[in-house]
C-alpha cells in the first residue's frame, strides 16, 4: 500500500528545457515581469501544490556557463528569488515560497532577515533552498572572494576537492545563522508594557554570538520572530557530502534518482548520513525531482519532446517523464512506493507544463489517492508534517 506524498514544483525561466523559450506559447519577453510569475504561482497555489522553488544565482545564466561570451540563443535574465518570493506572498494563499540562495557572497545576516520577512509577509509559508559554493563568474562579479571551487573535480566527488568541502562547511554555517537569528527573538518578546514603559522584554531577545570558520555574527536579528519560527530549509543533493549537508542542516532534501528503483540506495545513504549528523528532531523529508513534459496524448508529448531536443539536447540530473498526466501520476506512485515523502516536478516548458501540472496532474493524482490533500494547516512546516518549535531560548513553563 503506497502512502500518499506531497507535490512541489521547481520554477525556472521559460522552463527547464533549454529550448522551451522557443515554443509558441512560451513568454520569453516576460521572464522578469511580475505578471508572468504571479500567474504561474497562483495556478500552482489554486491546484494545491505544497510549495514552489525559484532558481537563482549571482551570475549571468547559471553559475558555470556563459562566462566569456554571453550566449545569445538561450533564455537569459532573472529576478532575485527572495524578492520574487516576497512579492508573491500577498498574492498567494497556501503555497509555500522557497527561493534559492547562494551562501558565499551574500551577507548571512541579510539572508536571515530576508527569509524572516518573507515568513511575515506570507503568514508562515517561507522556505529556502541552500546552494553551496561560488563559481569563478560569481567571484568576478563581486571581487570579494578569491577562494572557491574552480569547477568540478575529475572524479565528480566533492570530497576530492577541498574548495568544495569548504563551500559546504560555509553553507552549513549560513544555515546555522539563519536558524539562530530566526530564534533570536522569543515569540513573546514584544510586551508593550505601558506601566513600566517597556516595549519589549530584553531578556527575551538574544544576541546570536556566532563565531564560525568563515564569518562571525554578534547581534540578534532586527526582525521579530515570524509565524513559522524557522523557515523550511531545503537542499538539492546528489552524493555523499551534500547528503550529509542535508541530513545535518535541512528539513527537506531534493534527490535525483534515475528511476524509482534507484531510490532505495539514496534513502539508505540519507539514513546513514542522518544517524551520524542529524541535529534536527524530525527525520529528513525526501522529495524526488522529476522533469516533466505533459500533453493530452503520449504521441503529442513525444513529438513535442523531439522538437525541443532537436533544437537543443537537454542535460539534466533529474529523471525525465514525457507523456500524459496519467503517466506522470504513475511515476509519482512508483516513487511513493519506493519511499519518498514527496516529488518536486520541474516543468519542461513554462507556462505549458505548469498549467498541465495544475490542471491535469495534480487533480488526477489526488483522485487516485497518490497525493496528500491540503490539511489546512497555517504554515508550510506544519503542512509538511513538521512541528513548529518555540525559540531555542524559550523558557519552559513551570506549572503552578
Amino acid at each position, binding site marked *: 500500500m503506497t502512502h500518499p506524498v506531497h507535490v512541489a514544483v521547481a520554477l525556472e525561466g521559460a522552463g527547464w528545457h533549454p529550448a522551451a523559450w522557443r515554443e509558441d506559447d512560451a513568454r520569453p519577453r516576460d521572464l522578469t515581469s511580475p505578471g508572468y510569475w504571479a500567474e504561474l504561482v497562483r495556478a500552482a497555489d489554486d491546484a494545491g501544490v505544497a510549495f514552489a522553488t525559484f532558481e537563482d544565482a549571482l551570475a549571468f545564466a547559471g553559475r558555470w556557463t556563459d562566462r566569456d561570451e554571453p550566449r545569445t540563443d538561450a533564455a537569459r535574465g532573472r529576478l*532575485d528569488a*527572495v524578492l520574487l518570493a516576497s512579492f508573491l*506572498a500577498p498574492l498567494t494563499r497556501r503555497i509555500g515560497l522557497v527561493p534559492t540562495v547562494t551562501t558565499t557572497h551574500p551577507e548571512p545576516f541579510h539572508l536571515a532577515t530576508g527569509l524572516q520577512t518573507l515568513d511575515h509577509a506570507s503568514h508562515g509559508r517561507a522556505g529556502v533552498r541552500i546552494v553551496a559554493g561560488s563559481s569563478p563568474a560569481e567571484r568576478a562579479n563581486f571581487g570579494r572572494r578569491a577562494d572557491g571551487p574552480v569547477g568540478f573535480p575529475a572524479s565528480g566527488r566533492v570530497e576530492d576537492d577541498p574548495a568544495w568541502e569548504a563551500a559546504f562547511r560555509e553553507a552549513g554555517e549560513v544555515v546555522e545563522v539563519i536558524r539562530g537569528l530566526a530564534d533570536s527573538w522569543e515569540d513573546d518578546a514584544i510586551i508593550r508594557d505601558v506601566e513600566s514603559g517597556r516595549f519589549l522584554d530584553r531578556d527575551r531577545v538574544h544576541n546570536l554570538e556566532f563565531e564560525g570558520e568563515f564569518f562571525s555574527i554578534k*547581534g540578534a536579528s532586527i526582525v521579530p520572530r515570524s509565524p513559522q519560527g524557522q523557515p523550511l530549509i531545503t537542499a538539492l543533493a546528489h552524493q555523499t557530502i551534500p547528503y550529509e549537508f542535508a541530513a545535518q542542516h535541512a528539513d527537506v532534501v531534493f534527490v535525483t534518482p534515475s528511476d524509482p528503483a534507484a531510490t532505495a540506495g539514496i534513502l539508505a545513504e540519507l539514513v546513514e548520513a542522518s544517524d551520524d549528523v542529524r541535529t534536527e528532531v524530525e527525520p529528513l523529508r525526501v522529495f524526488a525531482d522529476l522533469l516533466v513534459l505533459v500533453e493530452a496524448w503520449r504521441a503529442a508529448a513525444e513529438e513535442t519532446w523531439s522538437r525541443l531536443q532537436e533544437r537543443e539536447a537537454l542535460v539534466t540530473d533529474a529523471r525525465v517523464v514525457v507523456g500524459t498526466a496519467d503517466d506522470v501520476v504513475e511515476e509519482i506512485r512508483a516513487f511513493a512506493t519506493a519511499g519518498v515523502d514527496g516529488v518536486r516536478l520541474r516543468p519542461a516548458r513554462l507556462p505549458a507544463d505548469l498549467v498541465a501540472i495544475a490542471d491535469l496532474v495534480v487533480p488526477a493524482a489526488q483522485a487516485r489517492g497518490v497525493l496528500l490533500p491540503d490539511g489546512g494547516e497555517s504554515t508550510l512546516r506544519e503542512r509538511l508534517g513538521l512541528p513548529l518549535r518555540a525559540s531555542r531560548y524559550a523558557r519552559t513553563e513551570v506549572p503552578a
Partner: protein
Amino acid sequence: MTRRQIHLAAHFPGVNNTTVWTDPTSGSQIDFASFEHFASNAERGLFDYVFLAEGLRLREHRGQIHDLDVLGRPNTLAILAAIAAVTRHVGLVGTLSTTFNEPYELARQLATLDHLSGGRAGWNAVTSSDAFHGANFRRGGYLDHADRYVRASEFAELSKRLWESWDEAAIVADAAAGVFLADDAVARVRHESRLFDVDALFDIPSSPQGRPVIVQAGDSADGRDFATAHADVIFSLHTEFSDAQDFYRDVKGRLAAHGRDEESLKILPAATFVLGDTLAEAKERSREVALQQVRPETAITYLEQVWNRDFSGYDADGPLPDVEPDTGPETAQGFANRHAAVRARISKLREVADAENLTIRELIIRLTANHTFVGTPEHVASEIDRYVQERATDGFTVVGHLTPHGLDEFTDRVIPLLQERGSYRRSYEEGATLHDLLGLPPVRQRTLV
C-alpha cells in the same frame, strides 16, 4: 503660471521615540497588515513614495538592548517587494547601506524591485563605518571612516553601470531564428580601484525606470557632494524656513557644475505634523503627543547618552544633573575631541535649560519633539505650499507618530487642500514611474548603435 508642484513622501514610523507605542490604537511594527495599511493610505493620498529607514543592529543603550522605544523591523528589500504586490502607483524607497552590501547583489535586488513594481523602486543610500553594526557582517567594521563616501560614490557609479549594461532592446526573443539576445547587447562592467575589483556580467535586464531613484540623507560636506553627483532626492533635516531656503539655494546651485538641471534634484526634508480644528486645539494635541514621545524615562535615557552615565536616580521633572560627563577610556586619538564635543553639547543643553528654566523632560521635549507643522489643516496646507512656492523645499517626507495609521489624517484633511491650491496632483498618471512622479528627467539608457 502653473504653481510649483509639491512632492510628498510617507515615512513609515521609525524605530525611535518619534513613534508612540503607548497609545492604545498603536499597531504592529512588523505585521504585514501594518505595511499594507500604511502603503494603501499613501497611495490614497497620492504620495510620490513610501519610505523605510533601516537599522542593521538592534539599538543598545549602556550595553543592553534599548527597550523603551519600538524595536523590530522587516528586511527593507523584502518588505518593499511585498508592498509592491499590494500597490500600483506609489513609489517604494528603502534605506540600504553601501557599507554592508556589495554592488552586484544590491544592484540586482533594486533592479528586481523595479521590475516587480513596474518602475517604482528607490534607494536611500546610506554609509556607515562603525564596528557596532559591522559585528553583524562578514567583514566587521572594516571600512575606514574617511572612506565611507569614497566607497558610497564608487558603489553608486558601479551600480549605475550595471543597471545600464543591458541594452533596452537586448531581448529579441526570435523563436524561429533561435535568437534570444541581440549581439553585444550586454556590456561587461569592469571597475578596479583600491576598494573594488569587479569584472561583471549583470544578469538582470534593463528595468522599467532604467535605474532606481536615488535618495541621499547625509548633511556633511561629503554627503552634499554625493547628493549633487548621484542623488535624485535629498532627505534633509532643514525645516526652519530661512535655513531651508539657504540649503536649497546652496545645493541647487551646485547642480550646474554636474551638468544637471535644477529640477533633477528634489529636496524633501523630514516633517512631523499635528492637526486640530483650531490652532489652540492643535497646540494642545501637539503637547499631548510630545509628552507621549518624551516620557520621563525617555528624557533620562537621552541624558544618559550625552553624559555616558547612569541617571536612573534622577527625576525627569527636576533640573539637569550637575555632574561631569564620563567621556570614556582615554585613547591616543579622539579623546580630546570627544571630550570637547561632549562638553560643548552639555554646555548648550544648560544654556537652553537655564534660559527658560526647563526641567529635564521639558528640555528634551523642546529639543526633540517640536512638531514641524502644528495647526488647522488649512494652516498646514498653506505652510507646506509656501515652502514649495518660495523654494525652501520641493516638498516633505512626512512622518506620523502612530503605526500604521498616523498619516491617515493627513491624507483625509490636508491633501485635498493642497489639491485645491493647484499645487498637488489629483491622480496618478497611468504607468508613471517614480522618476515621472518626482518630475525628474528620464534616465538616459545605453542604446545599441
